[in-house]
């Protein structure tokens, strides 16, 4: 469904992304992991249309959307959540989600009804009339998810949607994400929370210092020595796999 081909992004003298190609197949959950500063959010910004790539192209459903504006991509069916949540603070949860619903539904009443349904799907049914500014972090993350879902996307870009959540909150959100995929939406997610990556993703790409260093099934990728070294430092793979010296 989505193919970002040979993407390169330079900011002045710094190459943030270097010749990266990733594919998000339809109906699957694909993961993008890597240590901080690897370029994951930049790659997301390029796919979502907030940044232009210095090189390479972005193909969605085999159409070149590299230079398309953000709102046009959303119309095509690409929705994203933000790493730092961006609620419409003064609006209620219902009104927030309705803005997303309005993309495909002109009438106010339709949008509001759909907003209620989506709120139920992401677990915000009890807080429909709360101003978004009053939600907890977990609530705001669900709101981000709900708003993006309301645009009826084909591809959902989740940018560290689990960041800042405690273990029980994470445990509650995982089935919601799975249910979205089961509903036919393709998901590409950037994540640091490894348990989520292993449980949700069918295929994972690893980015480090702007380059793709590994890809494959999550379990295999986590064993890959290059990946371990990217996270834990040089030689870490060797140290981890070496047999323990006998104790005195």
């Amino acid at each position: 469904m989505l193919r970002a081909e040979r993407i390169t992004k330079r900011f002045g003298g710094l190459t943030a992304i270097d010749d990266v190609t990733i594919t998000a197949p339809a109906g699957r959950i694909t993961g993008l992991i890597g240590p901080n500063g690897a370029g994951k959010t930049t790659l997301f910004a390029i796919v979502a249309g907030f940044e232009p790539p210095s090189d390479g192209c972005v193909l969605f459903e085999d159409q070149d959307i590299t230079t398309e504006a953000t709102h046009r991509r959303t119309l095509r069916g690409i929705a994203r959540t933000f790493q730092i949540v961006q609620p419409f603070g003064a609006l209620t949860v219902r009104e927030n989600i309705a803005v997303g619903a309005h993309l495909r539904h002109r009438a106010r009443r339709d949008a509001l009804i759909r907003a209620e349904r989506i709120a139920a799907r992401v677990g915000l049914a009890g807080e429909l009339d709360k101003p978004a500014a009053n939600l907890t972090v977990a609530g705001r993350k669900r709101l981000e998810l709900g708003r993006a879902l309301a645009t009826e996307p084909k591809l959902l870009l989740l940018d560290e949607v689990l960041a800042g959540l405690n273990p029980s909150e994470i445990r509650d959100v995982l089935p919601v994400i799975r249910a979205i995929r089961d509903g036919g939406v393709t998901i590409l997610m950037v994540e640091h929370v490894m348990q989520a990556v292993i449980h949700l993703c069918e295929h994972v790409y690893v980015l480090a210092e702007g380059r793709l260093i590994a890809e494959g099934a999550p379990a295999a990728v986590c064993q890959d020595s290059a990946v371990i070294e990217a996270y834990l430092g040089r030689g870490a793979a060797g140290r981890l796999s070496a047999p323990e010296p006998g104790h005195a």
Partner: protein
Amino acid sequence: MSGRDVLPIVVIGGLLALIPFGVASNTLLNFLVFTLIIAIAAQGWNVLGGYGGQISFGHSAFFGTGAYATAILQVHAGVNAWLAFGLGILAGALVGLAIGALSFRAGLRGSYFALITLAFAEVFRIVANTIPLTGAATGILIKLDARPVNFQFHSRAAFFWIGLVIMLVALIATRALERSRFGAFLVALRENEDAAKALGVDTLRVKLGAITLSAAITGAAGCLYAQYFLYLDPTIAYGVWISVEALLAPIVGGLGTAFGPLIGALTLHGLGNLTSLLVGRVPGIDLVVYGILLVLVIAFAPTGLVGLAHRVRDRMRQRTALSAGAA
């Protein structure tokens, strides 16, 4: 938009329309007409600044264009006053679209946007002060010929009612905005422009629509001013005073609310006149009060009078709920 939305507007309009029957004082009617003109200009500003969050310091550009267009069409082209009125509104809207196209395409937001609107208004003022079409510094005079066909009336009450009708139309348009998809997009981009874009909102289109509507409404206020006072000069038409009045009223009354501008205009001008009565006709003293009020509102009641009223109402609801629970 349902009947329930329009009803309060119509009721309030009906009540206000009764005023001239109970009041014979020309001074009071004068005050009311002038305040209505300000309120209409403010209603326009509120669409862009209150709902859209794009603060303009140069709305006089739209007010003055509406005013001058109406005047020039009548004086130099012999156009019928009512037609000139409509064309004046159109002229204001077009200026809004043009300024918006230049400013929003260049990505100007916040203080930069406020500055450029100020600059545009000044350019208009300087041009009006120079070219013969507007009468340069001397200004332009619409010939007094008080017949309804000329959109001139002997009675001030007639102007009041017409102003009231325009105000009501603007109010209904605002309500419609609130209940529409366009309005939802406008408020969304005010709250968070990037998030709105990510949800598929064409923020440029929405901003352009908002500034055009805003300019049309404020332009209408300018047209009415021209018809009522029959005299314009560059400082009246494009001066900073109307830019300030147009933004002050919604802030005091309640940004981004339908009735905010009207309530704000009535409060400000009521207070202004009260101050004049108490302190005497010292020029500038009423504006000092306005300035103080602006700072106080921002500091203590940023949601304006309407916001305060809502808070009081919510607190009273809470109290009745609590006492009902306790009972």
